[in-house]
Each structure stands twice: as C-alpha cells, then as structure tokens.
C-alpha cells in the first residue's frame, strides 16, 4: 500500500514537472479554464436580473447546485484524468497501453498516474469561489449533520463521475475509437445536475433517476442542505442515497475495468 502511494506520488511529480516547463502557456491555460467555468455561471447570473427565478429556485440556490458539482467534477478530472476517454482512447489506438502492461507496476496505478493536469485546479478554484458566493446569497441553516454530510456528497460525486470515466475508458478496449456517447453522461450529466431536476421533462427525469441515478447526487442532497420541499414526492431517505449511487457506480466501473483488462487483446500496433 505504502509502496503504491510512493509510486503514485512519483508519477504525479513527473507530470507536474513537465507542465511547468511552458510557464506562460500553463498559466494562460489555467486562466482560460477559470474563465470557462466562470462564464457559464456568469452568463446565467447576468441574465438572471431579467427573470424572477428558475422554477422557484433563486440564483443563489442554483449556484449551490452548480458549484458543488463543478468542484467535484474538477477534482475528479484531476484524479481520474488518465481514464478520460479522450486521452485513454488514443493510448489503446497507438498501443501505448501495451507499454504500461509490460512494466512491473500495477497498471491501474499507472493509468491513474498518467495524467495530472494542473489546469484542473482552475475549475476547482472557480467551483469553490462560486460555492462561497452561493453560501452568501442563500441562508443555509447549518447543523452538525449537514456539515458532516457535505463532504460525503462531494466525495460521492467524485466517485460517480470517476466511475463514468473508467467505463468510458474500458469501452475503448473493444471499440478502439473513443466512445463519444459517454460525453452525454459526463459533461452532459454535470450540466444536467447543475440545475434543479424538476425543470426537465418527465422522461428525462425518470431516466436520470432509475437508469442513471444522477438525481441522487446533487439535487436531493441540495434539497436537504437548503431545506427545500421535494416537488417530485421522492422518499424521505432520497437525500441520503448519494454515497450509494456514487460508490456503487465506482465499484461497478472498477469491476468492468478488471474484466476489460483481462480481455484486452491490443491493436497490434
């Protein structure tokens, strides 16, 4: 265990060192990403003055939803970046994954250590800033239970989206091409749960409740944190199911990953 951590630390250190070689580019990259997370929310905030609310939710309450998932997704992207189907797909295509398999180090650990993009910190920072703004715009009645549950929700979201990345990466063992449909769940999913779920059509809500339970990750926990009534009439325990959805997804994804590795047959390049 200790040895694995040390290996991981070294792999990450290499990634960091290579990125700070092009200092201006890295800084601009970080500034750019900081703006992108900023502009999406900034655009909503700037037009909000023309509207009263978004289906009964104030700007601050939407900011709460938005910033929580933004921070979690940014953190996930930092840790699970190696599994990003956009970067993992080419590894399978070019056969560079075969190199990793030949090394006497656990391959999962190597993939974890194969990407650590400093520019993800921009997204995380933006998420945290908007979260602070959200807290100042809403008056959350904090209780010890809520304070304890917030990090759990956060980690569950990281686990859930990390699981999606791993599933997308594993799929490329068979498809070789990257599977772009996964983007609907990763990038589309974060966008989806950045807004109160009751604004969506019934079929969409059902899909994201029963098939891919994203509704449990952000919306229900937010109802609990913000003390808002549930217009969808879900069970009273719904706000507390985030860890089950998040870690269930991650466990299933890791199982699929192990299965995929066992059946990986290389492209022969």
């Amino acid at each position, binding site marked *: 265990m200790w040895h694995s951590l040390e290996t991981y630390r070294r792999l990450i250190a290499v990634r960091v060192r290579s990125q700070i070689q*092009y200092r201006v*580019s890295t800084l601009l990259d970080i500034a*750019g990403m900081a703006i992108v997370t900023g502009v999406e929310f900034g655009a909503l905030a*700037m037009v909000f003055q023309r*509207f009263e609310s978004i*289906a009964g939710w104030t700007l601050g309450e939407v900011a709460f939803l938005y910033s929580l998932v933004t921070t979690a997704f940014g953190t996930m992207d930092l840790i699970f970046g190696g599994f990003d189907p956009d970067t993992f797909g080419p590894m399978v295509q070019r056969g560079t994954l075969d190199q990793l398999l030949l090394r006497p180090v656990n391959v999962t650990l190597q993939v974890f250590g194969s990407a650590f993009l400093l520019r993800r910190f921009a997204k995380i920072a933006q998420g945290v800033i908007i979260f602070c703004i959200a807290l100042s715009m809403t008056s959350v009645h904090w209780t010890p239970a809520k304070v304890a549950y917030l990090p759990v929700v956060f980690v569950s979201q990281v686990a859930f989206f990390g699981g999606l990345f791993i599933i997308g990466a594993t799929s490329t063992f068979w498809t070789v091409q990257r599977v772009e449909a996964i983007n609907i769940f990763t990038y589309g999913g974060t966008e989806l749960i950045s807004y109160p779920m009751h604004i969506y059509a019934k079929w969409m809500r059902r899909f994201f409740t029963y098939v891919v339970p994203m509704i449990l990750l952000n919306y229900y926990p937010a109802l609990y944190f913000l003390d808002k009534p549930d217009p969808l009439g879900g069970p009273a325990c719904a706000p507390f199911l985030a860890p089950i959805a998040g870690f269930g997804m991650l466990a299933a994804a890791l199982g699929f990953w192990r299965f995929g590795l066992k059946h990986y047959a290389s492209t022969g390049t």
Partner: protein
Amino acid sequence: MHLFYELIKTSFHQQLTYRTANMAGLATNFFFGLLRAAILIALYGTAREVAGLSLRDAVTYTGLTQAVIAFLSFFGWWEVMRSVYSGDISSDLLKPMRYYTFWLAKDLGRALACFLVRGVTIMLAYALVFDITLPTSVWHWLAVGAALVLSTMISFSWRFLVNLSAFWTPDAMGVGRFAFILSWFLSGFLMPLRFFPDWFVRLCHLTPFPATVNTVVEVYLGVLTGPEMVQALGLQLLWFLILLAACQLTLRAGVRKLVIQGG
C-alpha cells in the same frame, strides 16, 4: 479556382466518412439543446416575452446555437497549429496556392458537411420536439443563408489567426483554449446577447464574436429586419475583411520567423 473547388470537395467527403463521430456529436449537441431549452423554459416561467424574444424564439435559439457548434468548430480547431508543429506547413507553403486560401477551402468543405449532418439535422429534430420559429419568406431565408456564410468566414479567419500563434510559442494550445472560451461568452452562444445588460452588449460588439453566432440567431428569428438586418450583414462583412487582413499580416510575419525542425 478549380483547385479551390476540388479541395472543398475532398474535405467535404472526408468529414462525411467520420460517421460514428458525426452521429455521436449530433446526439451530444441535441442532448445539450434539450437541457438548455429546459433551462430557458424554466427561466421564462409565465413571462411571454423577454427582451424582444418570445419563449418560442428562446427555445429556437437553443437549437440554433447547438446547430452551429460543429460547422463553426466552436469548441476548438487546431489543424494549422498541428501543421506548424509537425513541419507539414513547409510543403503546404510550397503549394501553388495562398496558405490562407488552402485552409479556407479545406475548412469550407468540412463546414458544409457539418452544416448538413449536424446543423440541419438538429433543427429538424428540434422541429419534431418543439414548436420552433421559422423564417417567413424567401428573402428571409436568403438573408439567413448570407449570415451563415459570413459567420463561417469570420469564424474561420478567427480560428486561423489563433492557430498562427504557434509560430511564436512552442505550446499554443493554452492560447487557443483561452481564445475559444472567450468566444463562447461574447458571441451570444451561452445566452442570447439581448438578455445581457446594455453595457456588456456594447462591450461584446467591440469584438468580432457577435458577428458569428448572435447575428445568425437574430437574422433567423427575424428580430432584425430591414435596414437593421442589412447593417448587421454589412458589419459581418467588415469584420471578415478586418480579420482577413490580420491573418495575412500575421502569416507574413510568422513565415519570416518560421524554422522547420529537421527534414
């Protein structure tokens, strides 16, 4: 001219061969469109019209913005940058064609394919799911066509210009990403420009970005009519010419500086 036409044709067919990628992109764009439509519908609530846009216009707007993503390469375009780094540019510069024109032809072919496969299709899908606004006359459709062509030319010139930064820095991806992200906000892609406060809209109009997405949207929805519309199209032409000049000047300076590594 013949070469120009052949390049367009080749790159058109090339883009069409990426069938799965086109389908996946289409599905993603449509899904995001549904989300954005839901958000605007929720924002409107009981309001009938906001800043001159009816709810139907606002929903149509989300379709239009999703439809232009592919053919304006809105999320990034790195081809010239790649050819500078790989050295391919050395053989391209020897071609009996201006470097800008060469890439313009290639991009027009790609854009045309994307327009048909990922632009028109999204609007058709939208027409099935939503009640959308449609241009009312032949003249109106022609104006939309003109706005689309001009926005493609502006967008190409802007992307080309951004890519030229590769002459000066060994890793221009950061510059590029920054430039593309900037264009989302200022072009009226994230929210209709009309919804923003006046001071901000004025700021946007100092840049070429509203001439890409926003003009297409406003001409299509019929928000701009008569002289206002002609003015908007004229402004598009002006921005194109400015960017074209900027591209040529930057390219000349860049080529003078270019060192091809190896051989």
